[in-house]
């Protein structure tokens, strides 16, 4: 039976939500097309995820254990994952689209002479064809991209699909992986984490994002207070990362991170299409902006037209009360 192979991204002992979304959708896609579903975990201790993965019903799990996966280098991942592609012999390989995925997918596709369709908003199988839609031209339109290659790699934007449990018991195969660290042509020297990286923005359930309207340090403090009251991650538009008020690592948008939280606060953000491309998959969007014609209100579930310097302190206070509640 032909198969779909899903790469399972992990961080800090947890499976990334974006990977569970891909796994959930691929379970359905596999069922609809009479295909098998296999999951691949590359980790320092992959077996710790087996129970969680079984909740989503893969037919088989490949566990590939190696200490090298504790660092962020792409070349061991390319070698290891290639081994699994050869073992599994899938017709479709699906990733969650992350910065790590972006560094390996092209090389993997080239290595396996396969097609690659990155960063898709949706995809499906039609006979021999993988049909995907992905944002292009600064996210102003969707391109319909297809491939009839024997092997196709796709990566999926976070929030494109819902997670859906389908408990089962997968066959588990422990795959041996020898890697010669001496042969590495790249060396990880250091990982620099900024304060903003405490909560992984792309995985966060609640995001408070700041735009040009926050103006200065006082505005930034209000954003951080609101985020703290919600246990939320802080994000920012390009305007305020360029001005230096927030680090570039927090930029949300087509050229920054793609987020898909349950709740997204766009504060003082006008809603340029490049920013919207990074957050439009959020479930509930709250926009706070003094300009009633700001484009962000077209995307907002709830829009507040007014002065954020008045609104944020009140909002933070009320949320604190509810959370203390």
């Amino acid at each position: 039976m032909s198969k779909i192979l899903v790469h399972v991204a992990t961080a800090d002992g947890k499976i990334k939500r974006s990977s569970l979304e891909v796994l959930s959708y691929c379970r359905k896609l596999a069922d609809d097309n009479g295909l098998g579903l296999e999951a691949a975990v590359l980790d320092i201790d992959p077996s710790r995820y087996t129970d969680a993965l079984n909740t989503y019903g893969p037919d088989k799990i490949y566990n590939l254990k190696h200490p090298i996966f504790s660092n962020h280098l792409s070349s061991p991942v390319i070698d290891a994952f290639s081994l699994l592609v050869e073992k599994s012999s899938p017709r479709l390989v699906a990733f969650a689209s992350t910065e790590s995925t972006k560094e390996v997918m092209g090389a993997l596709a080239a290595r396996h002479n396969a097609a690659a369709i990155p960063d898709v908003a949706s995809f499906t199988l039609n006979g021999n064809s993988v049909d995907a839609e992905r944002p292009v031209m600064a996210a102003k339109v969707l391109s319909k991209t297809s491939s009839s290659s024997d092997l196709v790699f796709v990566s999926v934007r976070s929030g494109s699909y819902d997670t859906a449990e389908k408990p089962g018991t997968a066959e588990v195969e422990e795959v041996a992986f020898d890697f010669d660290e001496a042969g590495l042509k790249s060396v990880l020297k250091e990982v620099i984490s900024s304060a903003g990286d405490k909560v992984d923005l792309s995985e966060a359930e609640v995001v408070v994002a700041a735009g040009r309207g926050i103006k200065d340090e006082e505005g930034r403090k209000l954003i951080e207070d609101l985020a703290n009251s919600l246990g939320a991650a802080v994000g920012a538009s390009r305007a305020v990362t360029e001005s230096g008020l927030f680090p570039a690592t927090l930029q949300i948008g087509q050229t920054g991170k793609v987020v898909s939280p349950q709740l997204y606060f766009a504060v003082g953000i006008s809603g340029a299409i490049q920013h919207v491309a990074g957050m439009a998959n959020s479930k509930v969007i709250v926009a706070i902006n003094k300009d009633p014609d700001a484009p962000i209100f077209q995307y907002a579930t709830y829009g507040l037209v007014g002065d954020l310097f008045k609104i944020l302190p009140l909002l933070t206070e009320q949320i604190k009360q509810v959370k203390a509640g």
Partner: protein
Amino acid sequence: MNLSVCIKQVPDVSAPISIKEGTLSQDTDRMVLDAYSASAVEEALVLTEKHGGEVQVVLVGPEKAKETIRKALAMGAASGVHILIEDISGLDSSAFAEILAAWHKKASFDAILTGKQSQDTDAGLTGSMLAWNLELPFAANAVGLQFENDSFIVKRQGDSGQEMVELKSPCLITCSNDMNDPRIPSLKGIMQSKRKTVETVTPADLGIEASALNSDSKTERKGFKEVPGREPGKKFEGEADEMVSNLMNLLENEAKVL
């Protein structure tokens, strides 16, 4: 230090765009140097200004794309290579990577720089495919770059935090637009660029048959469609405390997200 920078000519994505029967229509047919490519050129220029050597830019595209090579030369690149293919509409990242690999197999360089993606397709595949084809050490999404002891030290933006990665030369690095602000060509730069060499090569010169080009492409673009909108929401104006009370009520009782 000799650096090869792969650049791309793209439509001006800031221009209004519409879809007519599945094809794109723009108010302008203005073509520009891709912003990520421009950051790669800028970074290469900064490195050669510090460590000596030259920057060569390489572009795959039609005759019209020569103006984009001239732009990079006006910024300060020493020479250009134009891999002339009049119709690139059927070529995907795999095909571009094959063509660029064929050129670089004959070239000598200490590093190849490219944009981390291009503004028109945002795919971000060509760099890593090219690195694989040339068996080069590779890092993507660089936000900083240094050269020390025959190695490139790349600061790349990862999923959680920034990673410092050391790559032995020769290597390939893809550049973020957060890396720098590309310089605007000076009048002097523009005048000098006219005297700089642009070598034109064809796929046949690189040993690639025209018929092979499209079969190197493994994906096909079937058309375009509008980005779906969101359900219209509720919008409040008025006193701050009233709006906040309304919002709290909706977040708790309607959306149930608190």
